[in-house]
């Protein structure tokens, strides 16, 4: 089982009454409570894991290992942070360890074939391509085959794939921040807590991530039938 650590005391946040009820249910081994939390956080956990590992299969293993640690450790969890914060600290530790191991097993230079080198292709681009290929059938495959949120169907598959591609090009920390802030809607404070960064650092990471994704989407949208104005009805 992966070796993980709890968040340091200064990063802990008091749990709400609702969270205490949830924690009580989890400590009592309430299977429906576990199943509900597993479903609620699955997408977030998978996305955060993908900031560090190369493919969906590895990310799913990270999520599963996280829950194994949580099941084993829930009796010792003191509730000095929210259950979500506790879970994501575990996940991030496991994902980072797994990512470092993957990188050791597959050096970046190995990704650059003779043809790519001759063509002047950036090794980083090759890594991104390799991650997409390892995911199975491109980034859309990340979301295929499972029960999806009906509202998410608003996103066309092609556009969704472009968004996933844009996220995959980000540096791990930038990706973590934009996933938690803009995809999952977490507060800045909770993201700082999970990632162990200052608010200033979090803002810089988020700004850079947003700029990169915006530029990727801008190029895509300008050449498609989709119009940015479709989504701007709440502008000042």
């Amino acid at each position, binding site marked *: 089982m992966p070796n993980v650590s709890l968040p340091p005391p200064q990063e802990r946040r008091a749990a709400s009454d609702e969270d205490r009820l949830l924690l009580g249910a989890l*400590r009592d*081994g309430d*299977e429906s409570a*576990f*199943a509900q939390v*597993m*479903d609620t956080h*699955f*997408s977030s956990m*998978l996305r955060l894991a993908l900031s560090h590992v190369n493919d969906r299969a590895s990310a*799913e293993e990270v*999520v*599963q290992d996280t*829950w*194994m640690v949580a*099941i*084993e450790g*829930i*009796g*010792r969890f003191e509730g000095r942070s929210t259950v979500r914060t506790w879970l994501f600290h575990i996940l991030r530790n496991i994902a980072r360890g797994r990512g470092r191991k993957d990188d050791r097993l597959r050096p970046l230079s190995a990704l650059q074939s003779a043809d790519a080198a001759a063509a002047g292709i950036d090794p980083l681009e090759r890594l991104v391509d390799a991650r997409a290929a390892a995911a199975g059938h491109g980034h859309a495959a990340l*979301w295929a085959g*499972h*029960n*999806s*949120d009906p*509202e*998410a*169907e*608003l*996103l066309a598959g092609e*556009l*969704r794939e472009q*968004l*996933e591609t844009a996220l995959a090009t980000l540096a791990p920390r930038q990706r973590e921040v*934009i996933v938690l802030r*803009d*995809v999952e*809607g977490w507060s*800045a404070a909770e993201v700082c807590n999970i990632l162990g960064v200052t608010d200033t650092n979090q*803002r810089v990471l*988020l*700004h850079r991530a*947003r700029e990169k*994704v*915006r530029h990727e*989407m*801008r190029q895509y*949208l300008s050449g498609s039938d989709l119009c*940015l*104005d*479709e*989504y*701007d009805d*709440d*502008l*000042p």
Partner: protein
Amino acid sequence: MMTCREAAASLDDFVDGRLPLMRRQAFANHVHACSTCTQVLKEVRCTRRLLRRLPRERMPDPMKNRLLDELRRSRSLPDSPRAAPRIRIAPTLGTTHNHRK
């Protein structure tokens, strides 16, 4: 009047609702007068909204079943912290209480 550079520096805080009132008003005034910053703001908001609409999924059943099996197994182990009574010192009385019913 706020400059484009200043507006760019305030953009994320504006989108996140973290800009103080006076600065928010200055930002809005600038955006109304600057087509370039209006376009950037539209793109940022559009991208953010699209990200929020990325689909979510439930945990695949095989994984969930494996984990629930692990939960049952961990609870059945005699030396498991889950299976053992949780006993602690009551802070006010100094006596022990078994919190398991």
